């Protein structure tokens, strides 16, 4: 046995395999960026990269929360509708406050607060079901999927959007949702906060957002989530629970409390995504996160997080979300039917799972060597 393993090690250097299994998603992202830059006109522009980043924020926020849940060997299927619930709630509170004569700034703050708060409710219930009543996460959050979906549509009276936002309110939302801290105008230079008045149409067309607000907000949330997971005791305990719940209990970690907090965190990230969605599109939409749910799970898996728990990180999910966003944009620029993105993303997910399996086999071989 030992000699067999040795022979295999000589055949393929395990260090190379290990390097590839750890970094393939990063390499893949770089690869597709280079590919689309070479083949697609207008892909390799500041404007396009900024647009890709903005597109990716929704999936990224959801994937970042989902990463915590998946590391505990769970999954949260309800967050797609949590995004919608939060978007709709925020829109309604803002609209109703403005209609009743409130100051727009106050209405916006109150709306954001309500949208973030309402997102916690499905998180708390998911957490209680999984931790206390031991409902399998898949089932608990599938139930919550339906409940939150229904709740979101009840809040819109069955409509596809919460409309009726006053033009002033929409303008205020847009100034943040579609605004940028820093602009780049080719031939003119950098501008803070807003584009200057009186730009030529050609300048307007090429002006790019260097630091769009949704990207800044998402980056902050991602950084905080990544820091907590990688550096704090809370993060460490998350890995312990995912690796072995039994070991976590024996070592005195309050597993139930921890799991509840994690489902709440995940829902909270989706709440932020829902609020941002409203700011970007200026209408509350119950189905805002519907399509992004599976993409966010895909991002987590592509990022190398083990669906059986105990392993994974936030950077992986970020890279996964970027891969999906780059594919979406790149295929459109190449004028390929966007439907192909589903097929390509599907293939990438399967590659991700295969790579993960290869990694585990490799680890087992090394352990036995």
């Amino acid at each position, binding site marked *: 046995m030992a000699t067999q393993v040795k022979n295999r090690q000589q055949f393929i250097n395990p260090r190379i395999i290990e390097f590839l299994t750890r970094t393939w998603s990063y390499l893949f992202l770089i690869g597709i960026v280079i590919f689309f830059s070479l083949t697609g006109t207008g892909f390799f522009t500041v404007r396009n990269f900024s647009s890709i980043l903005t597109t990716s924020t929704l999936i990224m926020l959801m994937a970042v929360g989902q990463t915590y849940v998946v590391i505990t060997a769970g999954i949260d299927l309800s967050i797609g509708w949590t995004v919608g619930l939060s978007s709709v709630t925020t829109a309604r509170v803002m609209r109703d406050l403005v209609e009743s004569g409130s100051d727009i700034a106050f209405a916006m703050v109150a709306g954001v607060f309500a949208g973030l708060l309402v997102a916690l409710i499905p998180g708390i219930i998911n957490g209680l079901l999984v931790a206390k009543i031991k409902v399998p996460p898949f089932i608990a959050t599938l139930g919550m999927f339906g409940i939150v979906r229904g709740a979101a549509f009840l809040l819109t009276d069955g409509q596809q959007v919460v409309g009726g936002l006053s033009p002033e309110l929409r303008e205020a939302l847009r100034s943040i949702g579609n605004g940028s801290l820093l602009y780049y105008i080719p031939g003119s230079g950098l501008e803070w906060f807003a584009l200057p008045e009186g730009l030529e149409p050609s300048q307007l067309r090429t002006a790019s957002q260097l630091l769009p607000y949704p990207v800044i907000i998402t980056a902050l949330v991602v950084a905080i989530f990544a820091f907590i997971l990688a550096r704090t005791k809370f993060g*460490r305990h998350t890995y312990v629970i*995912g690796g072995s719940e039994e*070991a*976590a209990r*024996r070592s*005195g*970690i309050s597993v139930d409390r921890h799991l509840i907090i994690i489902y709440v965190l995940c829902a909270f990230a989706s709440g932020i995504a829902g609020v941002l969605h409203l700011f970007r599109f200026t209408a509350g939409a119950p189905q805002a996160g519907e399509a992004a749910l599976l993409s966010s799970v895909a991002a987590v898996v592509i990022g190398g997080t083990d669906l059986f728990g105990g*392993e994974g990180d936030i950077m992986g999910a970020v890279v996964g979300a970027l891969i999906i966003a780059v594919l979406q944009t790149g295929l459109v620029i190449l004028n390929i039917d966007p439907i192909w993105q589903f097929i390509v993303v599907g293939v990438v997910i399967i590659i991700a799972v295969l790579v993960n399996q290869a990694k585990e086999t490799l*680890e087992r071989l090394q352990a036995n060597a």
Partner: protein
Amino acid sequence: MPEPILTAHRVSKFFGGLTAVDQVDFEVYPGEVVALLGDNGAGKSTLIKCISGVYHPEQGEVMFEGHDITGHSPADVRNRGIETIYQDLSLAEKLDVGANVFLGQEKTKLLFGFIPVTDDDYMRAEAEKVLDRLDIRIPSLKQKLVNLSGGQRQAVAIARAMYWNARLVIMDEPTAALAVPEQRKVLELIRSLRGQNIPVILISHTMHDVMAVADRIVVMRRGQVAANMPRADATEELIVKHIIGASENGDAD
């Protein structure tokens, strides 16, 4: 004879109509390795769980270092210094050695003076010191546990018990599922615990292990103590007789 560090006095545990442990007296003295033997269902695991707090005995009392710990919670019993090491069950396989020694009790430091973060370098360094005391070499302490052998993992579990100042270690089948050289290593670990004056209760089916490290041998049968003898008086044959319940003249009951 010194005072026992642990005394179980007339402990009984019932499950419905079944008497799993029946008025058992059991002591552990400082610095000794006590082997607890018995067939499946003889009551040895139940007795151990009555000590470690997993089960609460219906009758009798358990005293540890002069304190009554009868009916205390497992966490409380552990805090008092009784560490139970289960085969593989209490380790986080996907974390490194340092993280495992500090599992659930991670050392933190302050980042920028106010954000508490895990201090992985400190934990690894401390883990290395304990492993040195046990004379265990693990090539890289950054290795995840999945990449270690069964014996090395067992060593990490024991290192953890030692680091947190265990004053009594209970080991449940520590050599089961290990290769022979690894088994030998675990037996050495048990001896080195004894060398540090930490008593060990060793539950085992493996006669060879018991004869190799035990100072005293207690055999349970049908919920009662069938035999309690110093290692010097024991032979494998005699122990087997007590386990299966054959009397001295060879009649099976």
